[in-house]
């Protein structure tokens, strides 16, 4: 049983020191002074091979980028990502019965493992999950008997000879079509979807419930977790994220707004209201403040590729947990501890409720998460080093190395440092993704998508 999974096929971290040298590769999106709400990227996800990169936005649109084959004439540039397909996944709706406005914003995209030539992904907004099929068409049939080349039906009585239609090559067309619509199963807002390792089922989680679906069946889903209290006045916590274990198809975890994670085993009972494991770091009661619970709320939970660890993101830190130890995390990494003395204003401008995501690299040796001012943080678990990098147009010359950034917390500000009060809290990096096999990362900075690559030696 491997402790760490190494990606197949090269490009992984060099053995020994993980000395990343991140360089700018590409940036997607417009340079807008006023960013339209619809253009704000709300999710980013690589597929299992890393060849496809999907983004979802607040306008309900999905854009998929595909990695170009490596070009022998340009050996220094690894494949670049270019637009492969784009489609409108969800549209705004109004539930008249409940007077509820349903946003079209894509909350999550999850790819299915590839089983044939087509690609499949699940995309979800607050209420409805859709299974999309993305397929290529490079041939077209010509010479139909009953219709013209432009599609108009021919008068059957005028057909005097029969012919067999022939397939002719055509320019590659990538089509996206909705294959399944999984609707009406969530009263509250969906925050997570996760494909099971059995490749047949998936879960969807909202604030109070988690449902299990079969990918082929849209008119039924099974409720596996329900934390809704009989009396809503007694509500003390909500589900914030959920994920299936990468290898054990009966195991899932879900995180809460109170900073806890529950691991459930679907074999133990049909309704997993009783957890198998309960992960919570004990809190020093004397340090409790008004903000304690809010900043302990977990915004994301992710299993490591190995399946042995999981990572949680709360407002100020990222924690790595060993699944065999519930009492406390094995690692705690501070993302932006300097914000602890700014909690009052962060509460007033609602930033304290921002939901940051986190991700592992392919070999689980490093983790990444976003921050403000278009900064993002990377933690090298083996070398015990961390770095702050910035996604900005200023550092966007091709193959330019990213310079580490530093926030000055008080006292004299050194040159190149930025003071906490100068941070732009509107520039949030909530969504990041790491290629499953190589050192390529995608960082969503509001309406722009940055792609960075590790310098090839």
């Amino acid at each position, binding site marked *: 049983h491997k402790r760490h999974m190494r990606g197949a096929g090269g490009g992984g971290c060099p053995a020994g020191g993980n000395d990343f040298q991140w360089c700018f590769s590409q940036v*997607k*999106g*417009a340079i*807008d*002074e006023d960013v339209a709400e*619809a*253009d704000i990227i709300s999710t980013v996800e690589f597929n299992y091979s890393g060849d496809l990169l999907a983004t979802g*936005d607040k*306008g*309900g*649109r999905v*854009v998929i980028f595909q990695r170009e084959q490596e070009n022998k004439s340009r050996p220094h540039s690894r494949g670049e990502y270019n*637009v492969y397909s*784009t489609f*409108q996944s969800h*549209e*705004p709706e*109004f539930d008249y019965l409940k*007077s*509820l*406005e*349903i*946003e*079209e914003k894509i909350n999550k995209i999850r790819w299915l493992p590839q089983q044939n030539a087509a690609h499949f992904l699940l995309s979800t907004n607050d209420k409805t999950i859709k299974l999309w099929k993305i397929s290529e068409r490079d041939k077209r049939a010509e010479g139909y008997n009953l219709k013209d080349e432009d599609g108009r039906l021919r008068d059957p009585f005028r057909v005097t000879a029969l012919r067999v239609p022939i397939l002719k090559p055509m320019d590659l067309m990538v089509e996206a079509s909705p294959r399944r619509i999984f609707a009406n199963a969530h009263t*509250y*807002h969906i925050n997570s979807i996760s494909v099971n390792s059995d490749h047949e089922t998936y879960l969807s989680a909202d*604030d*109070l419930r988690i449902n299990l679906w079969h990918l082929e069946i849209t008119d039924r889903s099974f409720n596996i977790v329900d934390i809704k209290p009989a009396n*809503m006045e007694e*509500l*003390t916590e*909500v589900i914030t994220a959920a994920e299936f274990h990468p290898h054990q198809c009966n195991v899932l975890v879900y995180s809460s*707004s*109170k900073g806890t994670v529950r691991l459930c085993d679907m074999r133990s009972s049909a309704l997993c209201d009783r957890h198998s494991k309960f992960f919570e770091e004990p809190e*020093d009661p004397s*340090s*409790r*403040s*008004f*903000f*304690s*619970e*809010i900043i302990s*709320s977990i915004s994301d939970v992710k299993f490591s590729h190995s399946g042995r660890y999981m990572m949680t993101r709360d407002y100020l830190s990222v924690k790595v947990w060993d699944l065999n130890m519930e009492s406390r995390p094995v690692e705690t990494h501070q993302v932006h501890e300097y914000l*602890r*003395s*700014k*909690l*009052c204003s962060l*509460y*007033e401008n609602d930033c304290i409720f921002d939901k940051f995501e986190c991700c592992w690299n392919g070999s689980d040796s490093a983790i990444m998460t976003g921050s403000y001012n278009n900064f993002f943080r990377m933690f090298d678990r083996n070398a015990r080093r961390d770095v702050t990098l910035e996604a*900005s*147009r*200023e550092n*966007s*010359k*091709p193959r330019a190395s990213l310079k580490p950034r530093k926030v000055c*917390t*008080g006292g004299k500000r050194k040159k190149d440092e930025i003071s906490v009060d100068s941070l732009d809290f509107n520039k949030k990096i909530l969504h990041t993704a790491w290629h499953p096999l190589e050192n390529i990362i995608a960082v969503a900075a509001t309406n722009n*998508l940055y792609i960075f690559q590790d310098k090839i030696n």
Partner: protein
Amino acid sequence: MSQKQDEENPAEETGEEKQDTQEKEGILPERAEEAKLKAKYPSLGQKPGGSDFLMKRLQKGQKYFDSGDYNMAKAKMKNKQLPSTGPDKNLVTGDHIPTPQDLPQRKSSLVTSKLAGLFSEEIFIIPPLHFDIQGLGMLAA
């Protein structure tokens, strides 16, 4: 949970001093921030992070509508002009009831995402001479 008086004023400064003993560094900034918040909003409930936040979160997207008010307003409006709606059209006050014409259009984005647009990527022209590209001020702030 009572606030110690000596935490109120000097707490802000002491929080920033890294020389403070062990865990106290982590506690004081938070408590100082809490004191600031309570000073601004004295009515803030004693149940931090509890039901109020969660209820607000669960209620996201809820719009309120009263058919009686709506029809009354519509009847009135037949005779006189539409009252000016002011900056917030969703605010229901007195005579002004949002009518279908007032509501922002909830059309889906028919425009293709700019990530997939024609010029979704900058074209870099490496200048033959040295000049400061950053001086062009492309980035705000």
